[in-house]
């Protein structure tokens, strides 16, 4: 039925104005924007622009097309026509928010709250504005009020994000857990929670949640990479590679992904594939040259392959990008020692120890380097420090066999040297 052919009866003005609202609404809901705009224009002409709903819909369509400024103008026009309609005000505020004018948006939202009833959306959006304004306390307050009115996944996510921005991981974790209780099938929340656990070092819990998330959304690249990295940590390289293959289809240009794939090849236990590892890591570096850990990994691979000059280069670029990671300095020191630059090697060890005085591996390596360069006494000193640290940390289940071996060898060598 074409409504333009409807016979019109003489009606009073209000009904005339609203008589085609149903059709506009239908077109809008069907996403038939062209037809919708056409009808809106006709209606606007007929009423000299004094009809609220067509303006409102036109503004919505404008916003869908990304023309936020124009859309704001129309919403404001609609507000002028009916200043007490909360819907209009909410949309005005939303436009302001989308344009990045957060303070103005907050004002309008407060206006809304004066008129209307309790609405979670207003609280939620206000919270978002505060978040962008970096007024985190107010943001948290708003999000909590929003949740009091009505609970929503989106609010939980944002609340958790605020806590993460504040680096209050405990609270963030609590929020996410609450969110999971509320909607246990939201894969996004599951993934976020998994990543939280992962960054806190609780791999098993992280893996459980990531696995859960994958059950709901098996193709999410972020989740796959996170889950596979846990598998990789457990030395099951082939399974991890299988997972990465799925993710690679979705995000072929992700530096993190290629970095992990490279390290999978490097970590394959009986026969590491160094060439493949280097190729993957280089690709990762090509895609994201600012990622220090890729350079660090490349350095490790080259060090293992005894290509010390290249290893030095990668460690030094990694340090340039992230100057406060202790392990890089230690490996740089080892590389320098192998390149016969004893003095610089020592200063690198010292720098590493400065950054992380509790790391036993650095002390052991330092002692070995010192011993190799005939500084037996200093080596003895470092070795003692190492043994103290090592004993302290012996409860950890992951004591490396190779470390044990090196320790014993050095112990004997030092003992022999001191007897002389």
């Amino acid at each position, binding site marked *: 039925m074409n409504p333009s052919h409807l016979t019109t009866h003489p009606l009073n003005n209000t009904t005339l104005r609203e008589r085609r609202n149903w059709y506009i609404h239908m077109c809008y809901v069907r996403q038939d924007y062209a037809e919708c705009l056409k009808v809106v224009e006709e209606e606007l002409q007929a009423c000299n622009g004094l009809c609220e709903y067509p303006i409102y819909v036109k503004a919505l369509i404008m916003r*869908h097309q990304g023309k*936020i400024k124009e859309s704001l103008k129309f919403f404001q026009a609609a507000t002028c026509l009916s200043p007490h309609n909360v819907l209009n005000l909410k*949309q005005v505020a939303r436009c302001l928010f989308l344009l990045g004018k957060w303070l103005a948006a907050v004002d309008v939202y407060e206006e809304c709250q004066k008129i209307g009833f309790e609405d979670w959306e207003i609280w939620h959006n206000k919270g978002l504005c505060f978040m962008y304004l970096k007024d985190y306390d107010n943001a948290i307050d708003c999000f909590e009020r929003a949740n009091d009115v009505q609970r929503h996944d989106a609010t939980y996510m944002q609340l958790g994000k605020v806590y993460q921005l504040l680096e209050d991981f405990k609270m963030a974790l609590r929020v996410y857990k609450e969110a999971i209780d509320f909607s246990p099938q939201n894969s996004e929340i599951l993934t976020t929670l998994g990543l939280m656990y992962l960054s806190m070092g609780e791999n098993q819990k992280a893996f459980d949640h990531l696995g859960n998330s994958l059950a709901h959304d098996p193709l999410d690249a972020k989740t796959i990479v996170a889950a596979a990295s846990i598998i990789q940590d457990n030395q099951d390289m082939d399974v991890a590679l299988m997972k990465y293959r799925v993710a690679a289809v979705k995000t072929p240009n992700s530096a993190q992904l290629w970095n992990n794939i490279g390290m999978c090849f490097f970590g394959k236990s009986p026969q590491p594939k160094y060439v493949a590892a280097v190729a993957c890591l280089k690709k990762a*570096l090509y895609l994201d040259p600012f990622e220090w850990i890729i350079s660090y990994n490349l350095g490790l691979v080259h060090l293992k392959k005894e290509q010390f000059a290249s290893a030095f280069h990668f460690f030094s*670029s990694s340090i340039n990008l992230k100057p406060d990671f202790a392990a890089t300095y230690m490996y740089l020191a080892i590389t320098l020692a192998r390149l016969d630059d004893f003095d610089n090697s020592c200063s690198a060890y010292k720098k590493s120890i400065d950054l992380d005085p509790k790391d036993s591996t650095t002390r052991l390596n330092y002692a070995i380097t010192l011993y190799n360069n005939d500084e037996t006494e200093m080596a003895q000193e470092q070795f003692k420090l190492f043994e103290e640290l090592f004993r302290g940390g012996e409860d950890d289940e992951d004591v490396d066999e190779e470390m044990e071996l090196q320790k014993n060898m050095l112990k004997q060598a030092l003992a022999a040297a001191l007897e002389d």
Partner: protein
Amino acid sequence: MRDEVDASWLALSRLRRRRFKQCIEGCSRILNESPYDQLVWTMKARALTTEVYVDETELEEEGVAEILLDDNAIASMPRPGTSLSNPKSSSSDHALRPVSSSGRPMTGFSRPGSSSRPMSGMSVDQAFKGNRPGTSRPMTTLGREVRLGTASMVNQSGVFIDVEKLNMRKYAARPALAMVLVEYLLHVEVNPRKALELCSEATQKEGFKSWFWKRKLGQCYYKLGLYRDAEKQLRSSLKDGEMLLTYFDLCKVYLKLDIPNTALDLLKKAGESFREESRVIIGIARIYDMLNDLENSSKAYKMVLEYDAGNIEAMACLAANHFYEDGPEVALRYYRRLLQMGVNNTELWNNLGLSCFHSSQFDMALSCFERALALAADDNEGDVWYNIGLVGVGIGDLALAYQAFKIAVSVDGNHAESYCNLGVLDLRKNDFDSAAAMFATAKSLAPFLFEPLYNLALLMFKRGNLEEAYDNVKEALVVFPEHRESLELKKELMGSLVGLR
């Protein structure tokens, strides 16, 4: 002594020794005395022609008018892979391999013609900007021919042949003279209409059996833009005498008609008759390149090298392919070979430097760049500094990188890639306003790059200005429709705009 040498003999000798100017002067002097000396007339025409001769088999520059008003293409909505303006959707990835201003992946060899042709519709603005905005003027209608033609006219004092008064039928009766004359008309006078007249007379005289005249007819039609007639003549010329050059002419016609696959078939057929002819294979490789079919083009280039181990174009293209496919070591070998071949220019040293850097030969890399800088001219110095900047990023020396990009921009004010990278470095310094300005500059200079568009969109999104973010991400997706990150960002933006969240 000189005076005793016969003047016509001297002119002939000069023609053979390619001393065209002197030859022409000598001929003019003789012709002043005896204007009907056919030998001297022939020599003068040959000398004039050879002086301005353009290799017809080479690809040609396309003028602005041809790019904008090209309606010769057979299909207006060609299927992917069957047209130069709609090649296979990128078999290579923008993110891994940079593109030229026309949106095609970079090849290792800069050549005229379709390398400057846009993949999809081009605005007038873009067409007039030329290949590298600011550094080159756009080609005018007939490309290089007109320029050469007018230049030779200036040299000439007085008119040698008054084309309008020529009696074509008379000349057509003398095949030897006619052959010289037609070349003269095509290359010196650039008057294909008159040449066509002569050709049609001559081919009639020969009883429609001479491949030469049919080929020339084809060439004339080609120049007049009558591509279907040209095709007919050239096809029939091939039947009378299978000549390699005719194949190339016909191939050019097919490319004009935008049916590259037919051209490919034709060249393959030519390859059957003319085995071991590297020019045919390189023609095949070029067409594959235009169609973005890098796999097949690499194969063809390799075959070219088997027959002609010194082919610079093939080597450069293979080197570039290997470089972008994670084989900098192999690329390095090709570039070294190019160096041995005697190529010594900025671009080569620059590429050598990059290959060295990516294959971990750091000591060599910087000295290569130094050489590149020493040889650099104004139009490519920016590129070298840009790559030095990339090396700076690679070794984590961001201060060096920043300075190098700055220099690149100061040397070449239109170096969009440098602006984009400066923006990224600004981002790392948390200088968002400057970064946004840099991206915007890069975007206006090079609308064919998706990086500044995506970066700008992301920056705007993070700063909460969703309108600009949306506009930019839409543009980025026009340039690079498969860019995953852009697609994701757009999805997120749509979510915010529709207001479901």
